[in-house]
């Protein structure tokens, strides 16, 4: 190994994957479909989420292709509307919300806190089945004509003015919501009750903290979305009148209830990503996370404040101007914890000993893009500029910077980081670094022009647009092509590495987390004996002492 990496792999000529691990323990499809093992469920999730991400990504490709020209020539406006609606619904509810918690979180939570499994393994499996049922329903509604309400289901459009599969899709999201409630519930219970002896709250890795915060949001926010969708379905099926202006109902009420969940949902998506970044940055700079408590509490602060800001999605909808003041102010407050995190990560690098493996590159990408995404959020939180920028491509660019530039970068970072632990094999380093670079470039080319388009006033969800917007749209589509390659590469080489990757050993990154102190892939019940934790999180000196000890003994 060269000096500028920390990777320490076992001697490949003699190294073997552990014979007994969670993958080889049992064979056969049923042993997977009926498993209670959190690592197997995480694997199931990883596969299904990748599948839906691919569908959502293909739909995104269609959107960008259509927008290559000002006219709606590739598909009819109706088709376009269905395509962007399905893109939004699949990406939000079937990819972003469950992505990190259900895959990495599921896999790592018990490992990180020193437990044998999540507290409720059957509920965990149920959660995956609910996810699959929801995914199946959404695919079914897509096959049978799709839905063209946008992922926001704005009433009265969704209840009275479209003839598409609103009810099926609404119920699918209801089911997906319960999948995410059960995941969140499971995490909270596990973190509270299943920590190993000595694993105090302030010894928890920050990944656990951020997933804890996200779980609170899932448990408290999702039911409100559920009841909102139930009301939409009832309104559409039976006309109960609650959201129907013709009967005296109030469509703005729908907006309130919908965004009461859907704004916190944004934090459900990004918080676990932030947890990944904390782990990765610390590991590759060989340093404790700067201001551990500040980062931990900022996660919780985001979780709490996330519930106080939803109306900023409705500033121009004719809500009371006085309440916009309250919500605008609160939104400004919720931006602060994110800033705290960014600066703490930056200062984690200070006096570190930094190496630049792929997860670290993705994390750097995250920090840059999330900073832009976060700061442009302030443009929309400020009521004055929100008037001009909302409902345009500015907002599209903003949330893609946060969701794709932030969350997806973090997801890829985490997948690369824990891939050796998960599969016992390394991914190819050089090509993955290239993929990270391609993703970063492609991403910026895709979404940065959209900020300018938004400032120019190009509305979102337009199948056709005035010709002077074409140049920027062409850039954006070109970028999307590059981005597509950037996402395809990891899928290919990670699959390849399952068979041909180098044997990773227990702790290729020399990381301190409990999960790195056991074999990879781990055993079914993770720890042969429940560990007793007597060191702080990110204690690299402890790790060094331990390594020396092992060497000396050996």
């Amino acid at each position, binding site marked *: 190994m060269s000096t500028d990496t920390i990777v320490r792999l076992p001697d490949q000529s003699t190294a073997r994957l552990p014979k007994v691990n969670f993958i080889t323990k049992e064979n056969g499809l049923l042993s997977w479909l009926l498993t209670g093992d959190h690592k197997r469920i995480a694997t199931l999730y990883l596969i299904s989420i990748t599948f839906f991400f691919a569908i959502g990504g293909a739909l995104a490709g269609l959107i960008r292709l259509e927008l290559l020209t000002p006219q709606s020539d590739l598909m009819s406006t109706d088709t376009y509307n269905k395509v962007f609606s399905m893109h939004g619904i699949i990406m939000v509810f079937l990819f972003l919300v469950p992505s990190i918690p259900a895959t990495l979180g599921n896999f790592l939570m018990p490992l990180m806190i020193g437990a044998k499994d999540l507290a409720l393994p059957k509920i965990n499996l149920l959660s995956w089945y609910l996810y699959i049922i929801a995914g199946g329903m959404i695919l079914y509604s897509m096959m049978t004509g799709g839905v063209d309400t946008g992922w926001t289901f704005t009433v009265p459009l969704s209840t009275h003015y479209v003839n598409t599969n609103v009810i099926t899709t609404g119920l699918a999201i209801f089911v997906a919501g319960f999948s995410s409630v059960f995941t969140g519930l499971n995490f909270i219970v596990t973190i*509270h009750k299943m920590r190993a002896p000595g694993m105090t709250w302030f010894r928890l890795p920050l990944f656990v903290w951020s997933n804890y915060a996200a779980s609170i949001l899932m448990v408290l926010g999702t039911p*409100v979305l559920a009841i909102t969708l139930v009301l939409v379905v009832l309104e559409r099926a039976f006309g109960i009148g609650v959201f129907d202006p013709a009967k005296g109902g109030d469509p703005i009420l729908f907006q309130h209830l919908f965004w009461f969940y859907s704004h916190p949902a944004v934090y459900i998506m990004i918080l676990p990503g932030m947890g990944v970044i904390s782990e990765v940055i610390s590991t590759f700079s060989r340093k404790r996370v700067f201001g551990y408590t500040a980062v931990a509490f900022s996660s919780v602060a985001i979780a709490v404040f996330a519930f106080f800001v939803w109306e900023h999605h409705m500033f121009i909808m004719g*809500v*009371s101007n006085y*309440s916009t003041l309250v*919500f605008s102010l609160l939104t400004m407050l919720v931006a602060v914890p994110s800033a705290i995190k960014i600066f703490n990560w930056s200062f984690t690098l200070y006096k570190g000993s930094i190496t630049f493996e792929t997860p670290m590159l993705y994390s750097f990408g995250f920090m840059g893009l999330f900073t832009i995404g976060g700061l442009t959020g302030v443009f929309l939180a400020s009521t004055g500029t929100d008037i001009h920028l909302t409902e345009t491509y500015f907002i599209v660019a903003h949330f893609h910077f946060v969701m794709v530039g932030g969350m997806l970068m973090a997801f890829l970072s985490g997948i690369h980081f824990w891939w050796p632990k998960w599969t016992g094999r390394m991914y190819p380093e050089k090509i993955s670094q290239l993929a990270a670079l391609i993703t970063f470039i492609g991403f910026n080319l895709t979404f940065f022009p959209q900020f300018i388009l938004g400032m120019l006033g190009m509305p979102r969800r337009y199948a056709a647009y005035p010709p002077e917007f074409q140049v920027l749209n062409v850039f954006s589509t070109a970028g999307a092509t590059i981005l597509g390659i950037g996402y395809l590469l990891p899928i290919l080489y990670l699959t390849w590495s399952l068979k041909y990757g180098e044997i990773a050993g227990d702790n290729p990154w020399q990381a301190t987390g409990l999960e790195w102190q056991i074999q990879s892939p781990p055993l079914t019940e993770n720890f042969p004996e429940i560990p007793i934790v007597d060191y702080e999180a990110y204690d690299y000196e402890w790790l060094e002492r331990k390594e020396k000890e092992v060497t000396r003994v050996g």
Partner: protein
Amino acid sequence: MSAHNDSHAMQPHGGTGHDHDPNEQDVHDTLNHVVSPVIYITVAAILLVLTGVTAAVSFVDLGVFNAVVALFIACFKASIVVLFFMHVKYSSKLTKLTLFSGLFLFCVLIALTLSDYTTRAWGRW
């Protein structure tokens, strides 16, 4: 086996005590606290009486206080159900905190939504 079973049995104070995690503050969820049936009967009786009271009060014209009284009685009824039937009175801080956080967020939902509805008429918007 049966002896062991007994040591873990669901008796009020029959647990084996600390064999787990000294750092855990909320280990002793006194789930096993057996509430005496006398309390249950009392609570049920109070609930039934209050149901009668709240129905009766609604026939008296108290102006806006009709709603206040009805909700107050409902809250009281809900509280005793939560405290006694659901054993929260005997439960850990964590359970109480969980319940409280739900009620708090429910209040946030109501209060912030109303912050829009009640101030819409303030001036010409």
